[in-house]
């Protein structure tokens, strides 16, 4: 044995040294992967994989996404499965670290042999594995991020977005503010990454003349005092916050503490009222105020949404999800919009797998995604066709009311992420009975 390994190693070392004289960055593209295959599909199961932050700083907010998805898959499995098969949902923890994402994604594809990737979470993380998934021919459905890059069918033919992208959402917010508050002075508060950049592109199209201040925060620094003061000094009476929940809450607390009361307009990513209430109370308690009326603080907040929120108790989908969550959810954690987000993805996945047929292949799954109207429980149309992988294509404008269901200020509108118009779509939103996502 040893006698054969030594020359092999020597050869390898020599080859390494010789070829390392070529450029390090030259890569040659292989042909597209074969999609008429069905790894992860057995006679009685289909394996679906995902990478999520289950530990680390991003986990407390986002862990509910996979919990929600798992609850729906459990519900599907206990109700006959999909075309006679059970869903095996494998979630790997990447702790929101791209290096770990790359590792666990390879693990999912090579060791767990997943049929498809669902809802890979995060822009910095998932952007590092789209190339790999594409090379391996793994359908990469419903990415959990609003970055524009998932909607590049030419470059990533197997990657499909899910949530409304940041620019589309910002255009709708911008137009709403310009039409309904034409005299307001508007300030932006951004996360200084693609969230902020893409949102600003959209807002500027409508609010260029009304904008008086643009402030950004770094997600590693929880002091937003200077930014809020700058917005106040600029006289902004509307603040559009393209922030993650922790920073929506911090911005609200900070402005309350200096007696500054602008109208907040929140993006979907940071407008989950249940999460915000929790965060507000937590931050206030840290600062020594235990009796903060968190719900009243949120009263009047305007936000955009593309799926039913947990406060819409009359919605048939929310009712179904509440039942599912009572039965399969994580014990003492209440259901939030983040939970619904994951449940929605699992529902769309179930629907796509149903339509992929009795003998699904990766190609038939992609075909099913293209051919189906995946709007489902969402409030706006869903784009998943050959040349548009954008996911939810617009948003409603809503206002939070303490103790009540939110008020819809403006019905669903859709648009594109460039200079296109904002239009009112014609679509039908199916109820749970009309949208078969499991057997029976």
């Amino acid at each position, binding site marked *: 044995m040893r006698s054969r*390994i030594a020359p092999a190693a020597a050869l390898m070392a020599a080859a390494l040294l010789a070829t390392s004289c070529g450029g390090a960055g030259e890569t040659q593209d292989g042909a597209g992967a074969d999609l008429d295959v069905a790894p992860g599909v057995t006679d009685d199961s289909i394996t679906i994989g995902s990478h999520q932050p289950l530990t680390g700083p991003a986990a407390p907010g986002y862990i509910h996404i996979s919990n929600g998805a798992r609850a729906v898959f459990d519900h599907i499995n206990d109700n006959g499965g999909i075309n006679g098969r059970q869903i095996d949902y494998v979630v790997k923890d990447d702790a*929101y670290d791209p290096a770990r994402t790359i590792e666990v994604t*390879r693990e999912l594809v090579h060791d767990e042999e997943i049929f498809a990737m669902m809802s890979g979470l995060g822009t910095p993380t998932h*952007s590092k594995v789209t190339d790999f998934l594409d090379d391996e021919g793994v359908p990469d459905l419903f990415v959990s991020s609003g970055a524009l890059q998932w909607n590049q069918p030419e470059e990533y033919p197997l990657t499909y977005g899910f949530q409304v992208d940041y620019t589309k959402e910002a255009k709708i917010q911008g137009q709403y503010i310009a039409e309904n508050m034409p005299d307001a002075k508007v300030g932006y508060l951004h996360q200084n990454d693609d969230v902020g950049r893409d949102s600003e592109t959209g807002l500027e199209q409508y609010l260029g003349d009304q904008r008086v201040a643009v402030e950004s925060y770094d997600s590693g620094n929880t002091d937003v005092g200077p930014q809020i003061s700058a917005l106040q000094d600029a006289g902004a009476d509307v603040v559009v916050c393209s922030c993650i929940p922790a920073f929506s809450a911090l911005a609200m607390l900070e402005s309350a503490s200096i007696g500054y009361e602008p109208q907040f307009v929140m993006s979907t990513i940071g407008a989950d009222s249940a999460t915000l209430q929790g965060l507000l109370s937590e931050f206030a308690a840290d600062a020594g105020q235990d009796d903060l009326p968190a719900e009243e603080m949120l009263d009047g907040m305007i936000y955009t949404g593309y799926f039913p929120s947990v406060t819409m108790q009359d919605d048939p989908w929310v009712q179904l999800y509440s039942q599912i969550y009572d039965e399969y959810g994580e014990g003492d954690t209440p259901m939030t919009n983040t939970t619904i987000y994951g449940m929605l993805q699992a529902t769309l996945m179930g629907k796509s797998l149903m339509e992929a047929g009795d003998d699904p292949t990766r190609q038939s799954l992609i075909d099913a995604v293209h051919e189906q109207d995946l709007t489902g429980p969402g409030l706006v149309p869903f784009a998943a066709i050959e040349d548009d992988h954008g996911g939810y294509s617009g948003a409603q404008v809503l206002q939070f009311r303490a103790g009540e269901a939110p008020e819809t200020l403006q019905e669903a509108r859709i648009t594109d992420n460039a200079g296109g118009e904002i239009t009112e779509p014609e679509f039908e939103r199916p109820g749970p009975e009309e949208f078969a996502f499991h057997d029976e």
Partner: protein
Amino acid sequence: MVSLSDHESTSRDGGPGGAAPAPTLGDRWRALPALVRFPLAAVAAFAAIVALTSVTGPTADLRIGSVGYYMLAIAGLQLLIGYSGQISLGHGAFMFIGAYTVALLVLNQPALPLWLNMIITVVLSCGAGLLVGAATARLHGPYLAGATLALAVGLPSLTVRYPELLGGSNGLAFSTRGAPASLAGVVTDTQWQAAAVWLTTLIGLVVLATISAGRLGRRMRALRDDESAAGLAGIPVGRTKVIAFVISAGAGGLAGACQAYLLGTATPSSFGVTLSLSLLAALVLGGLGSMWGAFFGAVALVYIELWGEDLAHALSLDSNVANNLPIVFFGVLLILIILVWPRGLHGMASSLAGSVRRGR
């Protein structure tokens, strides 16, 4: 790789009787000069890696590669902490420099060969090490730890400061060349990458081991044991400390370069304080004061979390518990090992080997 074992100033060998036993194979091996012994051991280790990756799959190849670059980073830290006695809580910062150097070179100068990228990385990170080392040479103990910690906290935020160049918080993504086309079917891309990482690592380790076995290494150990005594004995205290810092920064940078090459990405969140502290924890777990400690530490860093995950799955625990179990597992193991064998896994291995030898 036998040669990488202890270079302690006092020899552990020789039985209690004191009579010289007949020279064994091991003794003859140890009698070889370091310049022969370390390269030979590295060649044997490389052969072992090639043999190992020829039977494993792509995921395992990636992990084997990860052990390689972590080992290089930890070995650099070993030289700094274990040999020269300077504590660094910011070693991840040098990996950050290395990873971003390779990322920027590959993105902007794709035609540059990999070995040249690696050399540029080492030069740059040694330069950074010189700056930091010179600035902190007068600090020791907790003050040095604090200063280096600031480095780990502050450096990655440069990416947010210069988003156009460094990609902001999303970092940089790129693809590197895998196995050459002529070897298609013989060697897979991941095998190739793992081999390239380990070749780099082993070259780095040979340099580190040679340094620590030589005069510079002796000076560092003298410093570690008693700085005043070392100064009185004519050892240039400040300069030796800075040199140790520079060398370990170079190893850290090279490790970061290997990581970037292996994963095709450089992202600020990968190089936070957690990384620096993990490297330190792995070093302590592996064993301070020996290059073998770096090896054990790297293996532990890559595999213990995996085992923890498998354990959590096997026990089918509540998800909140299961998700955090791997980290707890690492922590508990660290505490237990340090309680029983203060010199870490390496100490455990050598005391076990010692008792076997005595039993013979």
